[in-house]
């Protein structure tokens, strides 16, 4: 599973992109985020407030209950500020 981070989420986590193999009981975006938080203070800090985290799976916006699986591209980022 490829996980991407953008904007200050990228800065806080400390990487733009990583290939991860979460445990088998990680089946949703919400479970993925819970697991990521356990990987270190940088993750816990970046993902502390879900009100400021948007999730895309395979380049489409999803909610926390959306399934994630091996081979997916999951992106985590703050609310967008373009335009």
């Amino acid at each position, binding site marked *: 599973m490829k996980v*991407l981070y*953008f*904007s*200050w989420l990228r800065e806080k986590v400390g990487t733009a992109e990583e290939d991860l193999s979460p445990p088998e009981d990680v089946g949703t975006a919400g479970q993925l985020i819970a697991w990521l938080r356990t990987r270190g203070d940088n993750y816990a800090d970046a993902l502390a407030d879900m009100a400021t985290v948007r999730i*895309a799976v395979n*380049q*489409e*916006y999803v909610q926390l209950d959306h399934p994630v699986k091996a081979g997916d591209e999951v*992106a985590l*980022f*703050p*609310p*967008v*500020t*373009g*335009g």
Partner: protein
Amino acid sequence: MVVRVQEEDFDIGTELSSLTTGKHGIGGVCLFVGLVREMAGDETISSMTLEHYPGMTEKELIRIEDEARSRWNLEETLIIHRCGKLAPGDQIVMVAACSAHRGNAFEAARFLMDFLKTKAPFWKLEDTGKGSQWVDARDSDDTAAARWEKG
């Protein structure tokens, strides 16, 4: 239908004429151009960097255009958004909606901007005298986009 994400600047006159040339059913074009402002609150901006999510950005912009075309009778639409480093006064974004009648063009262009502001994965980093800072999303943008939600 045109969607582009690019580092280079764009020329509004050129873009508009390539959109409308030979299409004589178009009676009105509403265009919006976003520019980098010099001030962010009390701070003077020296430059701004636009990060985006290549791949998803284009998909979202196409989705926004499709939605506009399903809601209004439009002859042409265009979205160009820049990425990378920009200076105050630089053009950031251009949207255009072309229709037989002006009402459709105005409504659709505003819809394109309101949705782009809340859906297209771009993030602005402002460089000021006090260092760099990511721009916060605005509640007013969410409110503007929510206006268009179907009841």
